[in-house]
């Protein structure tokens, strides 16, 4: 076998140009597939990273109506029959096996009543949070300080901005100490937070926009205790749970929603708690990108088929050229199996080299795609290995006919050829 491989390399090397041209079909096919697979994998990883709580394993459990998120823009939007989440309910959620931590918050969409000096800060989301929020949702203090016990006890009018809001509102200066007016009540900014694992969503489609829209405008946080100063005291809570692992996210979200739904008055039939199924959303997006790219893979496979036929053609030429060599080998005692093995090995080595060059070219192409269009790429080692193995398989399949022809040559006839 090793001898056959050595002889194959010798044969390929002695016909460099022809071997390269033979490999070209395989190289193009494999390179296309690798670059497509790298793009799919890159996009998928990006979707996953951007969506699945940046590795925080957090799930938001919020109110929905008819399957749509129930946004609260003003006090008239507050639904009836939904009590605030009590400490007991919180403890019950925290006791779930799949839950590591839990936090409650109130929220308002839009910032029409939020001003910095004369400027209305539209688009920001307001959240009134408990002491557990930043730890659970995976934020760290970037500037200033966190809320302290006194902020809650004394109903202090203090705010923390997330990095996006801080960058949008105070691009040139530090927000710490600045006064922001909320419903005509002045609040002081005491800190800026950002996600411990930061990411910048790439908006490249309408779907992406909807996914990241509420991330993009930024958040303004105040102590939950201070919420009724500007909003209402009986607004329903939303909940964020941090699951033990990514795999537990669905379970944690589902069970938390069930616990919360039990607290809702039986007369409230329209608005319910539901966990954001972020995994499902990611899956849908990944499926969408994979479906498009799978078609491209099929097209690239045609190139492999053409490449395979090219290999078969050249191997047939090679058998004809080396008829007398085959005759000699059979005359001096080579069995059919050996001749068959020799030609099959040669075809497999040829296409494997083509596959390896194809993988390298594909990786290069993926990098170029990344540079030019900004599409995320990620090289898949298993896919590369499979590509090389598949190339070898092409060599074996398309080399079979020429090899059988060689093995079955009549040595007397073969020796007569010059």
């Amino acid at each position, binding site marked *: 076998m090793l*001898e056959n491989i050595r002889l194959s390399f*010798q*044969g390929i090397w*002695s016909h460099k140009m022809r071997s390269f041209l033979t490999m070209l079909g395989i190289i193009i096919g494999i390179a296309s597939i690798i670059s497509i697979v790298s793009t799919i994998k890159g996009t998928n990883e990006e979707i996953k990273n951007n969506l699945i709580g940046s590795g925080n394993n957090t799930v938001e459990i919020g109110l929905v109506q008819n399957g749509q998120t129930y946004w609260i823009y003003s006090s008239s939007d507050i639904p009836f029959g939904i009590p605030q989440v009590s400490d007991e309910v919180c403890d019950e959620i925290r006791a779930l096996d799949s839950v590591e931590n839990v936090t409650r918050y109130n929220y308002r969409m839009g910032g029409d009543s939020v001003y910095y000096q004369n400027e209305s800060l539209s688009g920001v989301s307001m959240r009134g949070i408990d002491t557990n929020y930043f730890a659970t949702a995976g934020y760290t203090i970037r500037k200033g300080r966190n809320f302290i016990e006194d902020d809650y006890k004394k109903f202090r009018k203090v705010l923390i901005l997330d990095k996006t809001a801080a960058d949008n509102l105070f691009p040139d200066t530090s927000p710490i100490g600045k006064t922001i007016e909320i419903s005509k009540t002045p609040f002081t900014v005491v800190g800026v937070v950002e996600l411990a694992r930061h990411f910048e969503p790439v908006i490249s489609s309408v779907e992406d926009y909807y996914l990241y829209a509420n991330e993009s405008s930024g958040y303004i946080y105040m102590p939950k205790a201070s919420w009724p100063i500007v909003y209402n005291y009986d607004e329903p809570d939303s909940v964020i749970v941090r699951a033990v692992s990514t795999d537990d996210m669905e379970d944690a979200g589902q069970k938390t929603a069930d616990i919360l739904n039990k607290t809702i008055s039986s007369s409230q039939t329209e608005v319910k708690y539901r966990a954001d199924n972020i995994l499902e959303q990611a899956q849908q997006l990944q499926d969408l990108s994979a479906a498009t790219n799978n078609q491209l893979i099929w097209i690239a496979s045609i190139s492999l088929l053409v490449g395979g036929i090219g290999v078969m053609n050249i191997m047939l030429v090679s058998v004809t050229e080396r008829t*007398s*060599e085959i*005759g*000699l*080998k*059979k*005359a*001096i*005692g*080579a*069995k*059919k199996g*050996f001749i068959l093995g020799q030609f099959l090995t040669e075809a497999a080595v040829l296409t494997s080299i083509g596959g390896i060059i194809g993988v390298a070219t594909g990786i290069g192409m993926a990098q170029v795609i990344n540079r030019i269009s900004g599409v995320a790429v990620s090289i898949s080692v298993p896919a590369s290995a499979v590509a090389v193995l598949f190339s070898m398989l092409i060599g074996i399949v398309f080399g079979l006919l020429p090899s059988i022809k060689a093995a079955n040559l009549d*040595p*007397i006839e073969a*020796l007569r050829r*010059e």
Partner: protein
Amino acid sequence: MILKLDNIYKDYIQGKLVVPVLKDVCLHVEKGEYVAIMGPSGSGKSTLMNIIGCLDRPTSGSYELAGQDILRLSDRQLADVRLHRLGFVFQNFQLLPRMTALDNVALPLIYAGVHKKARRERAREALIRVGLEDRVTFNPTQLSGGQKQRVAIARAMVNQPDVLLADEPTGALDSKSSRQVMELFEKLNDEGVTVIMITHDSGIAGCAKRVVTIFDGELAERKEEVAQ
């Protein structure tokens, strides 16, 4: 008796016509003999050579080589016989141009499953035996006709066959090289190797210790040559 051919017939079918090529050929060769089969072109000597070389099967007759009934063997077993019992020398050398002399000689040992190190050792010894120890790493293109044929003889001998079969071994050589090759055959024969050579050249046939002629597919012993 190393080789025993009895009542060998070989017919070729051309369309509806049956063309007899060998007719009732009997040839017995003792171990250590040096036999030349001489005949003009079309006499059937190559067909006989192919049958002796286990490359072709006769239409009828019997063939024993080293006590083995050759005609009962499968193609696979015949390949083994060619590998272990026979050594071939061809008119046009049949060396593989991309390989060195050493690798060409070692080729049959690959099929015999000999390990690489032993293979190189034995191939080198065979080349020394034919006087080409200084041409081991040369490619066939770097060798003269006589040297190429000596490499081919080394390849035929490397597996220590019972019979060395040579088909017009000097057909492509000048007279000096031919003489050298003939001397090599004599030397090998003196060392105990059984040699069967096919030629149309009576001068070359004369180097053998026994000459049989073939004409129109029939074999005849040339007594006067034997007497010499």
